[in-house]
Structure formats: C-alpha cells, structure tokens
C-alpha cells in the first residue's frame, strides 16, 4: 500500500494533478504576489476602462514612491526578525520638523531658497533618524521587543510632532522645494521617481553585495547562529532601525514637497501599508527571507489596488477594510506556502 502511494506521487499523475503540482511549485517559488497581481489587473481592468492606460499606470508609480521608500526600510526591519511600527511617526516628524526649519530659514534668507531647502531637509532627516536611533538603542542594547519599542516611539514621535505644530499644517517653505521635489522632472522622469529608483539601487547593492547586507539575513535567519559566527548582532540590529528611519525620513521629505506643507497627520496608515507591501512580497515575518525587487512590486501592488478602487468608485472607508484584509490574506498565504513547501519536500 505504501509502495503504491509512493508510485502515485512520483510518476503516473494525470494532467490535472500535474497542473496542480506546477501551480504549487510556482506558489512556493514566487509567493502569492504574482497571483494577486494578475487577479487585481483583471478585476480593475474590467471595472474601469481608464485603469489600463499609460497615464493611469504612470500615476500609480508616481503615487507609489512614498510607500515604496518606506517599505524598503520596513523590509530591513522585517529581515532581521523585527518590524517598525513607528514609520508613520517618522514620516510625520520629518515633515513637521523639516517644514518648520525650512520655513524659518526661508523667512530669514528669502534670497537663498536652496540654502533653506538644505537646512530644512537636514533638520527633517535628523529628526526622523533620531527616532530610529532610539528604536535601535532600545531593541539592540536593551533587548526591548521591536513591537513595544517602535509602538512606544510611534506615540512619542507623534506627540512631539503635534506639540511642535499645535496640530496645524506648517506653511512657508520656498516654492522651489515643491516645484523640484514634489512636481519636478528630469528628462521627463519625475524627480520623486528618480529618487526612489536611486534608493532601490542602493538597497540592491547594500543587501546583496555587502557584508552588512548579508548580516541582516543572518541575524534574521538565526540570531544565535549569527552571534556564534562572529557577527556583531547588536550593531546590525541598531543599524537596521537607523537605516529604516533614514529611508522613511527621505520618503517623508518627498511627501512634504508634494503636499507643500508640513503635516503631523501624514503617514498614519504607513505602518500597516508598508508591512502589507513587504509581507505580500514574500518577506517573512519570522525574519531572514525577503528580496528588494519583490518589495518594490509589493508596494506598487498596494498602490495599484488603491488606485483601482478609486477608479471603481469604492468608498475610501471600504478601501481601508480591503487593505486590512489583504495584509491578513498575505500572512495566511505565507503559512500555506510553508505547508506547501513541506509537502514538496516529501
């Protein structure tokens, strides 16, 4: 009986069985994202004829830039087996501090807009990255769980951002800032997209071509093994959260330029969206697994779905529901993938 069972698995399978096996293999290899992408494109293309136009798809990429950059940072945190719930706050704090500093500098030196932009951007990046430094110290040095540490810092940062502005948007940045970094283009390519492309490239080099990049995977794959292999796990974890915050801050500056105001309320949905983008892209919540190129696709997918729902005139409240469900679906798919992997092993 056992022999016949084995034979059944090994060879004489029908075409339906073979197709199923092929799909399972594809699923294990590629994850859930390609399947979701196909479904989304079919559904939205049938709901709206404007969906599959060059103009709309360019728009999607343009809108996806901010989520994409944050997701790159989030991916680093996930790779090492943690996550960062404070990315929304980092975005907000960067925006508020950056805009305030820029506006103040602009008021003082109205003739040197580039100087104001540089000063403001520097201040914004410093403020956002400071949150990451705090996260890194808490997680790496004091062993606070990433959940608590980043949740706590999310509250701290958001409070500071509100306190600094009294909840009111910050105006008064040089017009040039929005013109260049929000709406400008170089040789026909929007500047935000160029910045995102550059960051993706840098991430590529960092995680695949450097020793530090390998250390992210090693620490997330097995922290104890990494330590026994001489990897300074504390330094790696600290660096993770600082880099995540730095990337998120850059995203925050670009978003501020796009909105032309500094706001404490931007980014509230970022933690959920960035984690969803990563997990849908096959980044493991258990750490050690994830690829940059897939995360890029994951972020594009999230924005694509939002765009498609807008075109299909789905109410924004319901869109939030869909997003939450997508995240959960992605995690379930991840579990199924593990099981499928185990069954293929046999």
């Amino acid at each position, binding site marked *: *009986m*056992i022999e016949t069972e084995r034979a059944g698995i090994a060879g004489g399978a029908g075409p339906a069985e073979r197709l199923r096996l092929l799909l399972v293999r594809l699923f294990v290899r590629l994850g859930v994202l390609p399947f979701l992408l196909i479904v989304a494109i079919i559904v939205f293309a049938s709901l709206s004829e404007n969906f599959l136009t060059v103009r709309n798809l360019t728009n999607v990429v343009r809108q996806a830039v901010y989520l994409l950059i944050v997701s790159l940072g989030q991916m680093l945190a996930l790779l090492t087996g943690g996550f960062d719930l404070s990315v929304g706050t980092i975005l907000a704090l960067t925006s508020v501090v950056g805009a305030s500093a820029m506006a103040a500098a602009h008021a003082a030196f109205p003739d040197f807009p580039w100087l104001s932009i540089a000063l403001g951007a520097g201040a914004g990046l410093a403020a956002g990255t400071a949150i990451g430094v705090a996260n890194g110290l808490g997680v790496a040095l004091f062993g606070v769980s990433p959940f608590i540490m980043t949740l706590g810092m999310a509250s701290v940062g958001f409070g500071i951002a509100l306190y600094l502005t009294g909840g009111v948007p910050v105006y008064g940045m040089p017009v040039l800032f929005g013109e260049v970094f929000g709406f400008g283009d170089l040789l026909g390519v929007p500047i935000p997209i160029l910045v995102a492309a550059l960051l993706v490239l840098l991430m590529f080099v960092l995680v695949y*071509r450097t020793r530090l990049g390998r250390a992210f*995977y090693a620490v997330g794959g097995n922290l*104890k093994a990494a330590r*026994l292999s001489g990897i300074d796990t504390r330094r790696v974890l600290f660096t993770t959260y600082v880099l995540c915050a730095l990337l998120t801050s850059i995203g925050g500056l670009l978003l501020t330029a796009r909105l032309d105001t500094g706001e404490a309320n931007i980014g509230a949905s970022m933690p959920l969206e960035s984690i969803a983008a990563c997990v849908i892209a096959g980044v493991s919540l258990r750490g*050690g697994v994830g690829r940059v190129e897939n995360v890029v696709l994951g972020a594009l997918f999230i924005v694509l779905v939002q765009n498609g729902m807008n075109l299909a005139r789905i109410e924004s409240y319901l869109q939030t529901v869909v997003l939450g469900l997508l995240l959960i679906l992605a995690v379930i798919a991840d579990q199924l993938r593990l099981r499928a992997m185990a069954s293929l092993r*046999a």
Partner: protein
Amino acid sequence: MGEAPLLELRGVSKAYPGVLALDRVDFELRAGEVHVLFGENGAGKSTLISLVAGVQTPDTGEIRLAGAPVRFTSVHEARAAGVSAVFQEFSLVPQLTVAENIVLGDEPRRGIWLDVAAARRIARELLDRLGFALDPDAKVEGLSRAEQQMVEIAKAFRTEPRVLVLDEPTASLTEREARRLLGLVDQLRNQGVGILYITHRMGEIRRIGDRVTVLRDGRKIATVPASTSEDDLVRLMTGRTIEQIFPALPPRPDGDPVLEVEELRTRTGSVVGASFSLRAGEILGLAGLVGSGKSEAARAVFGVEPIASGRVRLDGLPVDTLAPAAMLARGVLYLPPDRREEGLAMVRPARENMTMAALDRPELGPGPWLGRFREARLAHELARRIELRPAAPERTIELFSGGNQQKVLLARSLARPVRVLMLDEPTVGVDMATRAAIYRLVVELAEKGTATLLVSSDLPEILHLCHRVLVFHRGRVQAELVGAEIGEEAVLQHFFEREAA
C-alpha cells in the same frame, strides 16, 4: 512461555511523507521485563514508541495488548488501557504547579469545582511512592530539568500502567537521581510491569536491561540478550564494525599547548574550576553527563558563556575577555550542538550558512563588499569537500537531510583558517555514513595541525576519536585519560564517581 506477551507488534509499518519510518516491525514485550530499544537517531525508535503510546496509529500491521488487538487513537486512550509513556519532550505546563500537572486532564472534582486538596493528596502519594523529593505546590517552571523529568514520570504513574515507555529518562538526571530512577525501574519490573526503555548508554543496558531490540533504518535487525558485547551491539546498530566508522588516529603530537585553560569558572556556576590544555594536532575529548559543564567550558572559551574567573590563553596570550568575533579572528571556532537552535539559519541557502562565520575574511571581497562570485566559488569548493548531497549550495538548508545540514555546519571550519576547533556534539541526529565522513574530516584537520576540542555525549566517539579525554563532573575535570587508558569502563566510571562522598 505459553501465554501471550504483554505487548506485541506484528508487521507494523509507518510512513511519513518521503520516509518509511518503520518497515514491517515485529516486537514483543513480556510482563516483568525491561526491553531496551537500541538504534541510531532516525532508526525508528521514536516512531515505534509513539505508536505504542497512542500518539500516532500504524499504517499497517497490528498492536496487541495481552493478546487482544488494540488501536489507540490518543495518548489518553493508551493510558486508560494501561500504556503510559514518558517522552523526552515534556508535556508539562510550566505555569502550573507539580500537583496540577500530575492531575492535568483528569482532575479530581467536587461537583463542578476542582478539588484542590484531593489533587495535592494524589500528587503527594505518588511522589512519596516514587521517592521523589518534590513539593506538590511548586511551580514547574521553577524546577530543574531533572525535577521536571520526575514530574513527568509521576504523571505516567497516575494510572497504574502495565506497560511503561521511558525515552532516555536519565539523559537529564544527575547520577544520584539516575540511580534512583533505575532502582525504581527494577522495582516495577519485579511487580510485573513491562518496560520499554530507550537508551544509548551501554552501562544502563547492562544494569537494567533484559533484552535488546536493535532497529536500523526502520527495520528490526535483531533481538538479543542485554549481555551482548558493545562491539556486537554497535555492529548491529550500524551494520559496520567500529574500524569502518572511525579512521585511524595519527599519533598524539607533542609540542607546546596552543590553548590553555586555567581554573575556569563561569558566572552561572556550570563550570567551577576547570583546567586543561590543548596542543596543535591533538583531539581532546570532553566527556560527561548532560549538565556536567563540558559544553559550557567550550562555550566559555569561545566567549559566549560569561566567565567569572580563571584564565584562557591562546599561544600564551590572554583571550578570556574576547567576544566570538575576536576569537574567530584568532582562529578559534566553536560549532554548537543544536543545528536548528543556534547553528544554522534554516531559511537561508547552504552557501550562506557555510560562509556565515567567514564574512570578515578578505577572500570574500575588499572592504565592506561581498563578492558574489568569490563566495559562490568558495561554497562550491566547500560543498565538494564535505560531500554535500545534493551538491546544491544554493538550496535552502532546511531542505537537506540532517546529516547534510550537519556537514554544512562543519564546513564553517573549512571556510576560514581555524587553529582551534571546538565541536559540540557534532554527530547528533546524523546517520552512520555522515558520521564516518565527519570523523574523517576531523582526523584530516587534526593531521594538518588543527587543535580539536570534541565535546560529546556519544561514548564511541569519545573512545575512538580522541587522543586524550577529560571527564567532566559537576563543573570540574574529574579525570584525565590518555591513549590506551581510554576505555568504556574507565570513562563511565568517572561519569558517576565520588558522588556518594
């Protein structure tokens, strides 16, 4: 013997996806005997007892209890029929008390309320009868592993078993506790209980075994009297003679020690004053029971176990304050015993696991860069040297067999220059062919001058692969045996000795 055996397996098979764990196995256990199951890891021992205890059901064949066919679908059912098992994986709830754990699943009740007093009384009586000095109200999480083992055993006795399955019950016990447990097993045998006993220890087989059934690759090889010689048992277990498994040892080198450890004490008290030294090209075995401090001593040398006092010198220079990274830079490597727990990143490819401890090496690229082709070339070379099967370094390590995973771990010692290699239980859960390959590699490295520290609970390994053996006991070096002095009796004697004093 006219009557039916107490427990009988007839033609029992069990398959898991991809493996036939048990292949038409016959087995019998008589009332009033201690029947030892003997075999390598993966031979089918665990599967056999999981069928007997109702954890799983056989695919084919039948199990008979006192002549009547039975089919247990749960541990609870088996227990009710008189078959109790004590597994290595404890089934205790750490947050509950000893008494609560003992009655767990069948709590005495008064109406709808739990009868706490009765639970305590039942636990007290059981513990007294077994002679375990445990407080029924103590929380399990506060107990030592040995004490938890006692609770687990007490739990198995709650139902007055006719068949008792013990899976390496002494593995985590101190010598005194182990002796008491063996006394208890004796006593139960005399009362007519049939005991199915898994152990790797020759001494225990001699001490309490009546018969031994040897399993290999899911098949029953033979059932022999417990007085069978060790050589014969090993031959039955492995299908090879000892000479075929262990390569010839080069002569013990002389020369100055590379590594010197003096009066080493760890902060946790696991090592309390151990001194030893190690020469280039020498293989030094650290033997002793689990918890004797042999593993902790190696870990302390590597800088992962905090040192309270004492000195560690490498080429005469003090290194006792250094972290693993600095020890690696000086050519000292420690490979941990538990692959999954702290050895390998299971979700990453074999290649990354092989080079994990070599990420600081200039061979892999200049400055901060990691050369992909350089790394891939190194990984291929290593895969060839360790005979990785399949020879696919890009494959996720999880998809390899246990033996090949262990070889990948070992490959770390080839990925960078290593002068002092510390191996902690390097052959746990690997098949004989892999074992032989690992032993060849260890001897080959020693011939090239690597000083090797072999921490092992596997006695044949200690006996046949070491120039010199230190037996640890309660955090101290109890005995040092050199060359011809290394024998089973001599080594085992020091595992336990001086306890009574």
